[in-house]
């Protein structure tokens, strides 16, 4: 199925300067009963075809909201206040809802965190996968069914012909997530956004799903954005990483460089506070305090309160997102000195 696309993959890898998908200066606010809070603050992200961008951050850092906003999937109380979302040379924030609907599920697809509740409980798995095909590729009922069964096979669901007619509650968590992925890749999207696709799953199933995603990425030559809170998953699956903290991207780097030499104090703290299965440490070095909730976001560096390296320059003004090398950027007044 991917004969047509594989030939382009090498070109895409070369042409990294013009990313397939780029978010520029995106800000999102939520209206709450207590007023408006800004949950995403001038976020920049980009990903090229065939690459995996790992978007990592703790809960409430705004990583999911960023991607939902980019695809126009925010809940009613969320609003984009500024920014551009460039996909294939078009600004997704400027096109109409109808055009957006044509794009979603076709060229850009998304996989969500909890597959058990993200599938419609009263429709069969097969119906839900066929729907994308009918919508975007105009397949007939029969054609869609045939293709849907192929897709179920492709994502590794055994006995796909029978399972086509089953309902989501008859699927385990891992199988549901495979079905979600089948639905997302039904129209061979150019970009797949996976929002914590393995968080609700067991570790052996997580490994299977991550493997599946990376295989599919290669096979379909997609760009993949992998949203996660787990640095292990990032290390395992990402090519590039963007670290988010309190609504902002604080560091951006290729995965090896990030783990070898983190530049932001937060990234460093995060890495050293991880318990690891591959080594024993006497004591975990924890970051004191907790990430601020959106109501308490400040203009200056938001990590300042928990940082051991801050001084007067950190508060008051936002640390600029400084380019360190061709591939690295960091928003810190006192980046970690490489040793």
């Amino acid at each position, binding site marked *: 199925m991917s004969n047509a696309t594989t030939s382009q993959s090498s070109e895409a890898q070369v042409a990294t300067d013009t990313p397939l998908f780029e978010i520029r200066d995106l800000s999102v606010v939520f209206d709450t009963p207590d007023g408006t809070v800004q949950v995403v603050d001038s976020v920049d992200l980009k990903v090229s075809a065939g690459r995996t961008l790992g978007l990592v951050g703790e809960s409430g850092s705004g990583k999911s909201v960023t991607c939902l906003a980019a695809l126009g999937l925010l809940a009613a109380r969320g609003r984009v206040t500024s920014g551009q979302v460039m996909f294939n040379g078009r600004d997704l924030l400027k096109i109409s809802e109808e055009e957006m609907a044509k794009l979603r599920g076709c060229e850009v697809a998304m996989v969500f965190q909890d597959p058990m*509740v993200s599938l419609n*409980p009263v429709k069969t798995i097969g119906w839900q996968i066929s729907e994308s095909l009918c919508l975007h590729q105009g397949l007939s009922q029969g054609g869609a069914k045939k293709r849907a069964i192929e897709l179920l096979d492709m994502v590794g669901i055994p006995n796909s012909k029978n399972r086509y007619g089953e309902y989501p509650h*008859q699927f385990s968590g891992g199988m549901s997530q495979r079905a979600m992925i089948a639905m997302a890749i039904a129209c061979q999207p150019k970009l797949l956004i996976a929002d914590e696709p393995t968080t609700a799953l067991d570790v052996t199933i997580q490994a299977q799903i991550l493997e599946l995603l990376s295989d599919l990425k290669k096979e379909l030559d997609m760009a993949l954005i992998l949203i996660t809170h787990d640095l292990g998953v990032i290390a395992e699956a990402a090519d590039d990483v963007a670290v988010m903290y309190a609504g902002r991207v604080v560091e951006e780097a290729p995965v090896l460089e990030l783990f070898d030499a983190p530049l932001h104090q937060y990234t460093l703290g995060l890495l050293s506070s991880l318990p690891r299965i591959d080594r024993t440490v006497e004591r975990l070095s924890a970051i004191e305090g907790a990430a601020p909730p959106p109501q308490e976001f400040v203009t200056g560096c938001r990590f300042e309160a928990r940082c051991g390296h801050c001084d007067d320059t950190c508060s008051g003004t936002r640390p600029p997102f400084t380019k360190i090398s061709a591939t690295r950027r960091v928003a810190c007044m006192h980046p970690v000195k490489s040793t």
Partner: protein
Amino acid sequence: MTRYILIKILRSLFTLWIVVTAVFFVLRASGDPLYSVFSLGTPEATLDVFRVKWGIDKSMFEQYIIYFGDILRGDFGTSFFDGRQAWDIVMERIPKTLLLGGTTFSLSVIIGVALGAVAALNHGTFWDRGIMTASVASFSMPSYFLALLLILFFSLYLRWLPTAGASTWWHLILPSVTLGLTLSGSIARFTRSAMLEVLRQPYMRTARAKGAPRRRQVIWHALPNAAIPTVTVIGFQLGWLIGGSVVIETVFSWPGAGRLFITAVGVRDFAVVQLFILMVASTVITANLLVDILYGYLDPRISVTGDSK
């Protein structure tokens, strides 16, 4: 599925039996019915003749056994007043009640569901607020008072519609509007909240992410899910409708079973009252049973086979 339905049916029959028994004893708690039928001076000897004839000379328990046996044979007793079979008396009123109830119910469901869905899809807007305000107002209004206001305005002031009776289609309008207004208000409210609940679910976001147009999201993804709780609620409203029609038939002198009930209650006509209650209870219980079965059909998660695999 069979097991599921069988258990429901057994439960329903049991419930019905309790209702019949309870009603039998509660009505008998009122003392000798003959005193309300005959005037005070009637000689005891005459009364005794009637006691034997109507079987109320025996002990309460014997009467109950006999009554229950009769019901099983399809004999619902005779009216103390005109001596006719209670079954015949009630049955000749049923068509009119069905006409009023059926019209009201079907219109209310259609209007209520539509308004509720519109309100939910336009959550927080003018339409939502308007429909919900009207809905709260509709069921805060005592139905008999609304009936009087409508009569006052349409019949007495404008002289467009008849005040009472059931001889033409025109007679149907006021009673069914009165009953239906409250009913559709309540159905609208339920539909709206069920719909809002569904619209909040993650799978609706999946549908959007899939690129389904708005109309398709609503019809194919939201409605089938919202239908599940709504159907239950609509089933429960049937009982309310019957209760309400008793009042409305009285106000509009609609010659249905509800008005018959009020009359029968007034003169303590045991057989008719018991039969009416039995019929109402079995109607409501059957409706709830059907809703349960429909529920199992609408919601694949109800494990109809008793096992998930």
